């Protein structure tokens, strides 16, 4: 019964989304009132919310006749994880995706005058088309509401990895919001191509939305890294896994987009290259979704696979072809730009964008390579961290080098490189001190040096502009990136780990930390059986550490729950790999990971900086220029 209601709501949402698209195109083409279109947008949102509500009701009410509940619900799952299991598998997360997408559309189409650029109706129609596609995908290919017969008495519950930590309630929605936010620059980019012009207000809107989506995506990726570290329990936070790469790709192109938009935000014109970047972030989100959710590539994080691959692939290919066609149609001979000096703001920011695209190309190639080999040679191939560390990391270091120049950039003249003396001294000093005291390897050492160099330059800039700090979200964002670089370098260079089979009373040592096995407790809960290992820490750390190994019979899956004791200098990270049934011995991995917290701190700073930049009121000088005066054709650089 409840399943049918869900299907009806989804179908109604599909129809409402079609109506929204058509009504907004009517506004765009015929210039009529936007009121009915706005009503349709709200209706779409209501239907998406209702679909989520119905599925939540079915999950909470343990209605196992609904397929999604039969596959992901369970009577012994705590209420919190029952609620979050809406996004524990693909079909349910599509509903969350729809809800955020429809919410995004409502926010874009709002009535406040500051939001209504001349391009808005076109952009709304584009966003509407994307909504139609996702409703159709959910309704036809991944409907979570189909009935199950015979009705099972109980379900297996969500994937055990997704009910280990309360952050499950925050991390996926945050990441989805970041992904879906990219639909706004996409919509405005396509709108600019369709309409053949841009204006200052639309470009400002695009920039603000991109900043918001970018901040959410940054937070989502950071949280994903933390999740990987604290919950998945393999000891690291980034493995260049396809799912991780898929989240990084739109982040890289959105970063490039933000910089190209910032470089020329005063003209209100969009270069085709900027439009291409705006479109590519959302397209990469779609490609990433296809890659990781269709089962095309193997990943640790791919919790589900489903038959919607072909439909997604078709949509991705059609969108790419459409955008390329529009770009070719609208591209004209690039208009002249007064050639700016090599180290002026525009050239450096363009350089940054080129590097970001290079990083995206590397990550995309590495992610797609196994598919290519499979298609051409029929062999399995894998691209591990080795490739990315060899190719992407050096490029990222060059990005840091360029970032250090950012505080000195001027729009009209070359940066005064003499001001780099202090940052350069700090960087070289850091390299000298760290490199003479230890041997971290060339890449981490360079990262330490560049981190010190960037941070010193930012500090100088913050002191110089202390009166207008409110307008300097970018300082914070850049500082965050530098802090992440230092954290990554430190944790990859200085991590020590030991893996050993211990009998009760024996000791394992990693670095200056020792752990003695006190005992192994075996307990059987309602849905799981766990072996909790009690370790007594000594040496450089003290206290107890209690990692566990949890076995879930319903899913036939074993999860290792790490125990992390954090100190300012780093984490003592213990995991159980195996425990003998009689509780007399266990295989334990003990690791000391220095300065990992810098990675989380840096991610948070970056997201905070972008949020500050997005929320900043437009400067008075620019607000005075009426939007309509500033229209410029696409392709005018």
């Amino acid at each position, binding site marked *: 019964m409840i399943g049918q209601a869900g299907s009806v709501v989804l179908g109604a949402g599909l129809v409402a989304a079609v109506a929204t698209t058509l009504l907004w195109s009517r506004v765009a*083409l*015929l210039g009529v009132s936007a009121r009915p279109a706005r009503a349709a947008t709200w209706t779409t949102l209501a239907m998406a919310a209702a679909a989520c509500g119905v599925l939540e009701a079915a999950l909470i009410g343990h209605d196992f006749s609904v397929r999604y509940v039969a596959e992901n619900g369970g009577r012994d799952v705590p209420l919190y994880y029952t609620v979050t299991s809406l996004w524990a598998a693909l079909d349910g997360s599509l509903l969350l995706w729809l809800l955020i997408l429809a919410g995004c559309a409502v926010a874009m189409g709002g009535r406040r005058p500051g939001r209504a650029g001349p391009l808005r109706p076109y952009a709304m129609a584009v966003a509407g088309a994307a909504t139609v596609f996702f409703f159709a995908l959910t309704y036809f290919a991944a409907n979570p509401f189909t009935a199950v017969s015979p009705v099972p008495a109980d379900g297996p519950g969500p994937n055990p990895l997704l009910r280990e930590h309360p952050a499950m309630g925050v991390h996926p929605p945050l990441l989805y919001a970041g992904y879906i936010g990219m639909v706004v620059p996409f919509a405005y980019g396509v709108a600019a191509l369709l309409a053949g012009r841009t204006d200052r207000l639309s470009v400002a809107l695009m920039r603000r939305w991109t900043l918001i989506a970018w901040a959410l995506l940054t937070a989502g990726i950071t949280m994903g890294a933390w999740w990987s570290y604290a919950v998945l329990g393999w*000891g690291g936070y980034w493995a260049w896994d396809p799912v991780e790469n898929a989240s990084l790709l739109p982040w890289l192109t959105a970063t490039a987009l933000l910089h190209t938009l910032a470089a020329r935000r005063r003209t209100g014109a969009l270069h085709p*290259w900027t439009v291409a970047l705006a479109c590519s972030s959302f397209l990469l989100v779609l490609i990433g979704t296809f890659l990781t959710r269709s089962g095309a590539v193997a990943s640790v994080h791919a919790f589900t696979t489903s038959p919607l691959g072909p439909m997604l692939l078709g949509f991705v290919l059609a969108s790419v072809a459409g955008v390329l066609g529009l770009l070719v149609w609208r591209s004209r001979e690039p*208009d002249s730009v007064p*050639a700016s000096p090599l180290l002026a703001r525009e050239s450096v920011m363009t350089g940054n964008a080129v590097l970001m695209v290079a990083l995206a190309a590397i990550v995309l190639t590495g992610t797609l390579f196994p598919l290519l*080999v499979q298609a051409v040679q029929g062999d399995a191939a894998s691209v591990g961290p080795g490739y990315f560390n060899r190719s992407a990391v050096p490029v990222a270091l060059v990005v840091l080098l360029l970032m250090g120049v950012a505080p000195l950039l001027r729009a009209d003249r070359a940066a005064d490189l003499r001001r780099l003396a202090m940052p350069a*001294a700090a960087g070289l000093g850091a390299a000298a001190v760290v490199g003479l005291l230890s041997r971290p390897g060339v890449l981490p050492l360079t990262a330490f*040096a560049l981190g010190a160099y960037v941070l010193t330059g930012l500090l100088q800039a913050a002191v110089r502009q202390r009166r207008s700090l409110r307008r300097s979200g970018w300082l914070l964002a850049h500082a965050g990136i530098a802090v992440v670089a230092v954290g990554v370098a430190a944790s990859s260079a200085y991590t020590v780990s030991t893996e050993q089979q211990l009998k009760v009373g024996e000791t394992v040592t990693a670095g200056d930390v020792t752990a003695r096995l006190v005992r192994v407790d075996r307990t059987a809960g309602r849905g799981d059986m766990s072996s909790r290992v009690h370790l007594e820490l000594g040496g450089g750390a003290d206290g107890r550490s209690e990692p566990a190994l949890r076995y879930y019979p319903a899913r036939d899956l074993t999860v290792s729950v790490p125990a992390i004791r954090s100190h300012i200098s780093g984490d003592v990270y213990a995991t159980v790999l195996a425990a*003998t049934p009689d509780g007399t011995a266990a295989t334990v991995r003990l690791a000391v990971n220095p300065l990992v917290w810098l990675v989380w701190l840096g991610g948070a700073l970056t997201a905070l900086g972008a949020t500050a930049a997005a929320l900043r009121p437009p400067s008075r000088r620019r607000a005075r220029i009426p939007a309509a005066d500033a229209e410029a054709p696409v392709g005018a650089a």
Partner: protein
Amino acid sequence: MTLRRFLTLGLLVVLLGAAGTAVWRSAGPRPESAHSIAEQLLCPTCQGESVAQSQSPMAAAMRDTIDQQLAAGRTPEQVRRFFVDRYGPDVLAEPSYRGLGLLLWLLPGLTVALVAGLALRRRRRKPDGPSPAEAPAEAPPARRRPSRAWDAVAVAVIALVAAVAVASPHRASDTRPAPTADRNTSLQSLAQSLEDQGRYAEAAEVYRDVVTQRPDDRTRLKLAFALLRAERATEAAITAEQVLHDSPTSTDALLILGLAQRASGSPAATATLRRFLKAAPADPAAAEVRRLLAAP
């Protein structure tokens, strides 16, 4: 050159020298540890996890092998060779950069060349037209009256979508939720096939490996049964007793315990088997047990 600038330059040169020394110190080859070798190998039974990361018994066994081979004095290259010979070249996490692998460098390189070329071409151009601010803006679309034909088409599209949505079959799916693939499944089937071949001792070792990660009754009983058939009755009895301790109603555990006690000549065997008969008189093994008890 002022004194200040001279001092700054001097300081930078000194620091550059120190940093150069530091980099040179760091640049030497780093010894390869067992962990770094494990990171370069992919666990064959997992989904995209390296041997260093994975918690599967297979990966644990491979880590042991790496430790043993390094301890026996083999070089890291020999260890990698060993695994490639055993599991094929795709056990290596890093692909070969020959043949198709060249694309891993060519494709990003070409993309960057293309993008940088476009950016540079734009920069080089001399101003020869009106500046963007003066470019004629296209007139916004004139307000036209909504055309009826347009509305009719729109309504038809909506009706079509609604019709397709209603007509699309939403049959009850009778597919049971598929059991999720497990890393231990392949080991279990390995143990099963060893048992089928009568190699009970080896099967027991594999089961023992699986049990360290999934201590459920079913696997432990399989372990006990394999031990029993491998004529290691004392160990079988211990394992069966552990299962009985956790789930006292398990008749299978009673049966295996009884048979193990009987095989090791323990006087408790008769009592245990009688308990089994009382608890499960209709068990397929009951007749055989009665025959055993009746025999002198």
